[in-house]
């Protein structure tokens, strides 16, 4: 008995691990009636895997039986692997047992499509419903919505889950045609659209009525695989931008393609995971969400890929040197956020601290500003550190030779992936 459950957990956690989302934040579900759990706090990573990713949720598939044949997926039907399936009760027991021991913030349940969309979705919903209603569980639940499932099931899923997600996986329609012939963009956008509309509609009702049921209070997210097809970074961030605006998504996750299958449509099995490119995409994503950048400021049609050796904000600043240097004691928050080497927190601290007196280099350094980059773009109370006018190439060279990037050993390897 114990051996069987161990085997199932190993198989179904192993096939779920390529979904990178592990976020447990953004919900407002509080503990009620002395029940178990509280998802109202910000997310907690309870441990980290040896690859350095946060473990916050029990992330498993209900089953890895699947009728689809997506080339990038380990669970595709033509792949000869061990198959397993949990019962609803087994998932519930594992979640509660792990949660009570403070191993996890909650459950992230996904599934292979084992019969049809509705049957699969119904089973996922049943797990969430049981946890909420029979066990008074107020921890975090993230359910994968199965494209093609009925609106009624999706509606029910949103009542019990904190977050819902549909993984688009491939950022372009042509990529989808090539690698996931069973899926289309529109079949995946439909549930996103439904969720987004339901959330907005309930928010409007909430303004008038006190007791409006919760519906996916932590919103929805999606994931795109990077580097499985030939899409450009511009195509990826435009897709992300469309989701953020069009469907009010909380997060778009970028997952560097890990070669798991041999298929002539895919990069070879010994191709490296594009970790650096993935990192740069996240930086670009952050620029859109927290630094008020538009997608077309980060990349342009004649410049469609992120540079690997410098971060996208630094790249933008080098292309727009005419806007600098800024006076750090006067510049608006909007512009302070755009200075390379200054993060959101430092930007706010600068705005707060300069009310007490003008800031100098030492103040900025202590506030956490990376002067290595920022020095070329600002003036402050003290004499300038850089008095000459440099060309973008010179600044780039000086910054790169002054600091050591943790990724420097990867340069050159990834650019040649499709070369």
């Amino acid at each position, binding site marked *: 008995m114990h051996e069987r459950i161990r085997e199932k957990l190993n198989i179904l956690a192993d096939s779920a691990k390529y979904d990178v989302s592990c976020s447990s934040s953004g919900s407002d579900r509080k503990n009620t009636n002395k029940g178990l759990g509280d998802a109202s706090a910000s997310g907690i990573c309870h441990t980290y895997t040896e690859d*350095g990713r946060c473990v916050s949720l029990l992330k498993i598939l209900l089953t890895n039986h699947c009728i689809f044949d997506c080339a990038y997926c380990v669970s595709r039907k033509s792949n000869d692997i061990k198959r397993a399936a949990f019962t609803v009760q087994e998932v519930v027991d594992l979640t509660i047992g792990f949660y009570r021991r403070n191993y996890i913030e909650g459950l992230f349940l996904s599934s292979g499509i084992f019969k049809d969309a509705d049957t699969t979705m119904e089973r996922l919903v049943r797990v969430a419903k049981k946890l909420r209603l029979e066990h008074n569980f107020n921890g975090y639940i993230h359910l994968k919505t199965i494209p093609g499932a009925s609106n009624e099931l999706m509606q029910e899923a949103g009542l019990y889950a904190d977050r819902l997600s549909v993984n688009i996986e491939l950022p372009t329609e042509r990529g989808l045609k090539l690698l996931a012939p069973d899926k289309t963009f529109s079949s995946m956008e439909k549930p996103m659209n439904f969720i987004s509309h339901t959330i907005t509609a309930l928010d409007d009702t909430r303004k008038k009525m006190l007791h409006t049921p919760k519906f996916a209070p932590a919103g929805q997210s999606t994931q795109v695989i990077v580097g499985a097809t030939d899409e450009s970074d511009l195509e990826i961030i435009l897709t992300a931008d469309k989701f953020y605006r069009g469907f009010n998504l909380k997060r778009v996750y970028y997952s560097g393609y890990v070669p798991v299958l041999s298929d002539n449509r895919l990069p070879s099995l010994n191709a490296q995971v594009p970790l650096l490119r993935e990192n740069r995409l996240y930086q670009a994503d952050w620029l859109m969400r927290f630094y008020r950048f538009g997608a077309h400021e980060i990349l342009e049609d004649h410049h469609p890929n992120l540079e690997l050796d410098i971060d996208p904000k630094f790249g933008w600043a080098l292309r727009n040197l005419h806007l600098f240097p800024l006076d750090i004691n006067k510049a608006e928050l909007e512009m302070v956020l755009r200075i390379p080497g200054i993060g959101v927190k430092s930007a706010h601290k600068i705005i707060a601290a300069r009310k007490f007196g003008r800031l100098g280099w030492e103040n900025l350094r202590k506030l956490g500003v990376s002067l290595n980059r920022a020095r070329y773009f600002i003036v402050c109370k003290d004499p300038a550190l850089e008095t000459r006018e440099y060309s973008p190439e010179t600044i780039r060279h000086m910054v790169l030779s002054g600091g050591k990037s943790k990724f420097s050993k990867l340069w050159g390897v990834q650019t040649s992936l499709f070369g």
Partner: protein
Amino acid sequence: MIWLIYDGSFEGLLTLVFETFEFKWKEVRIRKKGALVPQLFAEVREVVTDEKKALRVWRKLVELLRPDGVRTLWKAWLSEMETVEESILGVINYAIALDRNVLADFGNLHVLNIQKTVKSVEREKHRMEAFVRFQLTKDDIYFSVISPDFNVLPLVLKHFENRYADQRWFIFDTRRNYGIYYDLEKAEFIDFVANELLSSNLVSPDAFGNGECLYQTLWKDYFQSTNITARKNTKLHVQHVPKRYWKYLVEKS
């Protein structure tokens, strides 16, 4: 230079602040009772905790720094760092001199020092909320042993009380020899733990209840299965889970 000794309570520190103004002491060093103080040539005074004096300072601070500003000072104090009291006094003197809330003045050294300390304390609090591992004992108590760098138990009480309202739990700090026990009604500080529950500062396997071993095995299995070997990054792993916490983590032991 005067060395001021107080009893190690926050009221004691507030009393001490009161007396620095009362007696117009300017250059002071502050230590908790029992800490090392240079004997030769030093003028040492012991401050006796006085609730009335402490309360007056408290009220003044709430007025100047707002309640969350006073909480900031208290959190910094929980770090138990050797010279934290001197930074706290520095901030108070500065706020009184300017007659305004100065906690956002990151250009001031004392403020910066306090804010940095608070950041460390909050990081440790967050780590405890993450790394506490409960082990179910035979008498149905979810039990955990920790030894945090700072005295963060007072900061995590609410978190665990809100979360585990339907199970009895006990978190014990072996470094400071006290813990929090929740008995399904309320969470309370307790400075005693039954000996048979512990073996070499960990929960003794002899005390495990039904199913505990299975869940630990399943959790270890899960930790391995969810790892992607092709992305191995030991440096990042250790940065997020520093080695000094491994001894309490089921998945790392």
